[in-house]
């Protein structure tokens, strides 16, 4: 139990919704969510498929702990072949949508085919039906969510939808639920848009059953106590949010600035968590209104923010004079340091637009950074931008382009290509700060060596959430390692990758691991689910998932040569800070990584490795 043991298969071409049993043999090997849905994708989709063709599938997946009393047990993911990357994609979101889907009695929804005209899926417990979305197509996430709740007279309905960006083929469109929680990366919203699927609206009243309620209550209570007593999860994250990292990473000399030209940003403190707490001169209120939490979460790292009503972005625009999803660290970095913009309200506004129109602020900000560099070089001109001065630090350029990208208009349509295609188009592909087509998040791998290997080997393109070695290399969790040394980082990256694979397959938030070890997680899964779930078994699930994703990518045409970083990080030394003079030592770490993984020198899992993992 704890799985609902039911899948909803939706054939958009035929307009059919059918129930089928969850494959429990696979659940035993892949647990749920990221792992289990990846298994379905690998079994059902040709890895060479065009991500935007009807033959690609889009899977909405919960984990066994989604919707339970486990802290942070509200996570859900979108699994597909990513539009931005052409690699396997798994984008994880929080909020309340995932738990609601589970309450309705479904572990997963598999969308296949393509609807002839825009539709949305309506689920009320067992009943599932495709509905005409003509009234919602062309509308934002915020309008769609409000409209669906009003139309069905159900304020408790939970909605996940795409904005205009996903309809218009912005390569890094995401799926947003509960107004400002996002399955953000790799263009999963672009795939959803290509299927003419606007939204999923769900209402569930059935609840979730766990295997051993008494043991589960004890395991989850014990684990919640660990979160509450830990200084990071009990105090730091709720008070400061992830944005506390802005000054940390800047001091460490690993804050990628102006498209990774620099590693420290002179405006970092202006856009930091500390700045979000400062009362403004104009109205005496801080940018941060309050913290927020996803379903069942006892950490509450979310930021709810308000823009100064006199700021140019929202003046006379009442719809944005609201408290809504504020800046998290990755978004603040991409919209700010990557572009050189230090106007906190401008960044908050751009972030609002990313939520409203459902596109990834990391890829968006990083692509603006690349475009700004091309503009400063004279390669992109005002003729290209429609008159926008794309100079470093220009806040108005950033916010204007956020709105244009959301609507797919003007130069925003070019930003919507993502940095890889944009820089290729203008003849400077080296200036795309990406791996496998996906833009880097907020850590410069010249100053945090393990993150270079993390990015290079990530199965969904550059990503910090696949192995967050920053925790060890900078923050000392669980143990401090030297960020400037590449020694031992191959093993560290693998340990993080495998543990994260298990957490992402469980229905839990990876931020719990700042306090929880696998010893805190395994008893919760073991009590909730049938079968025996030890730490060892969970780590094996993580390793299996990693190799499964890797195999999909190899079959899709990626090779070991794609496990690399842009030249800038391998050849141009950091100019300031502790990493001054250093490049990323990927060449040293990668062979060791392959060997420890049980892969060939070319990065292909050996037959022994595949056999050992029953792949």
């Amino acid at each position, binding site marked *: 139990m704890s799985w609902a043991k039911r899948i909803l298969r939706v054939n958009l071409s035929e307009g059919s919704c059918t129930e089928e049993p969850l494959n429990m043999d696979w659940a035993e090997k892949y647990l749920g969510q990221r792992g289990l849905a990846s298994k379905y994708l690998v079994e059902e989709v040709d890895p060479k498929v065009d991500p935007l063709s009807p033959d690609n599938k889009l899977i909405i997946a919960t984990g066994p702990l989604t919707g339970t009393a486990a802290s942070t047990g509200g996570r859900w993911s979108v699994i597909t072949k990513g539009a931005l990357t052409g690699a396997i994609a798994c984008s994880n979101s929080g909020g309340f949508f995932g738990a609601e889907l589970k309450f309705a009695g479904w572990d997963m929804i598999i969308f296949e085919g393509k609807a002839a005209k825009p539709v949305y899926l309506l689920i009320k417990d067992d009943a599932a039906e495709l509905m005409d979305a003509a009234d919602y197509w062309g509308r934002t996430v915020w309008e769609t969510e409000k409209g669906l709740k009003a139309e069905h007279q159900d304020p408790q309905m939970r909605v996940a939808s795409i904005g205009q960006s996903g309809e218009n083929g912005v390569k890094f469109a995401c799926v947003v639920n509960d107004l400002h929680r996002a399955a953000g990366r790799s263009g999963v919203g672009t795939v959803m848009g290509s299927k003419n699927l606007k939204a999923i609206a769900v209402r569930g009243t059935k609840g979730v059953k766990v295997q051993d309620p008494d043991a589960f209550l004890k395991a989850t209570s014990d684990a919640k106590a660990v979160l509450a007593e830990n200084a990071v999860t009990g105090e*730091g994250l709720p008070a400061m949010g992830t944005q506390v990292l802005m000054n940390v990473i800047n001091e460490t000399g690993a804050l990628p600035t102006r498209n990774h030209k620099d590693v420290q940003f002179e405006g970092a403190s202006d856009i930091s968590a*500390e700045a979000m707490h400062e009362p403004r001169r104009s109205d005496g209120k801080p940018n941060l209104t309050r913290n927020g939490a996803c379903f069942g979460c006892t950490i509450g790292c979310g930021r709810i923010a308000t823009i100064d009503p006199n700021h140019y972005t929202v003046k006379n625009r009442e719809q944005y004079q609201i408290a809504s999803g504020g800046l998290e660290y990755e978004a603040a970095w991409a919209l700010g340091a990557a572009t050189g913009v230090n106007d906190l309200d401008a960044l908050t506004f751009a972030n609002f637009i990313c939520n409203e129109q459902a596109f990834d602020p990391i890829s968006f900000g990083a692509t603006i950074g690349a475009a700004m560099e091309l503009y400063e070089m004279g390669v992109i001109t005002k003729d290209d931008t429609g008159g926008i001065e794309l100079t470093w630090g220009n806040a108005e350029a950033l916010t204007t382009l956020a709105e244009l990208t959301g609507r797919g208009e003007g130069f925003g349509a070019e930003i919507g290509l993502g940095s890889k295609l944009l820089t290729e188009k203008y003849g400077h592909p080296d200036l795309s700060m990406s791996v496998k087509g996906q833009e880097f998040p907020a850590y410069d791998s010249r100053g945090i060596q393990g993150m270079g290997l993390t990015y290079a080997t990530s199965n969904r393109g550059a990503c910090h959430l696949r192995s967050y070695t920053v*925790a060890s290399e900078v923050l000392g969790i669980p143990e401090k390692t030297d960020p400037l040394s590449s020694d031992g980082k191959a093993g560290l990256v693998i340990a993080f990758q495998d543990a994260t694979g298990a957490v992402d397959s469980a229905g839990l938030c990876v931020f719990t691991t*700042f306090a929880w070890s696998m010893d805190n997680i395994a008893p919760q899964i073991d009590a909730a689910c049938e079968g025996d779930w030890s730490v060892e078994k969970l780590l094996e699930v993580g390793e299996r998932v990693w190799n499964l994703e890797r195999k999909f990518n190899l079959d899709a045409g990626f090779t070991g040569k794609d496990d690399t970083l842009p030249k800038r990080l391998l050849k141009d030394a950091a100019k300031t800070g502790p990493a001054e003079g250093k490049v990323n030592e990927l060449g040293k770490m990668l062979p060791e990584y392959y060997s420890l993984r049980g892969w060939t020198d070319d990065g292909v899992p050996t037959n022994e490795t595949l056999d050992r993992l029953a792949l």
Partner: protein
Amino acid sequence: MKITIKLFALLGKYLPEGAVKNQIDIEVSDGASVQDVIHSLSLPAEHCHLVLVDGVYVAPSERDNKTLSEGQALAIWPPVAGG
């Protein structure tokens, strides 16, 4: 000698008056150690988790011996994380 101190997150409240953007230059005696400065600012030891001098980590065991030089920046955080 003069050094810059930077106190972040929940340690911000220990900043001497006049600090701007979580930092301020202060006078310390020549050869002062990291631990001397932590002590002089009355920072609770358990909250001094991440201690950086010019961006480089100073482990708890090294704080007594790590002496500061003129113009260096000492930045301190309580336990924090993000991502």
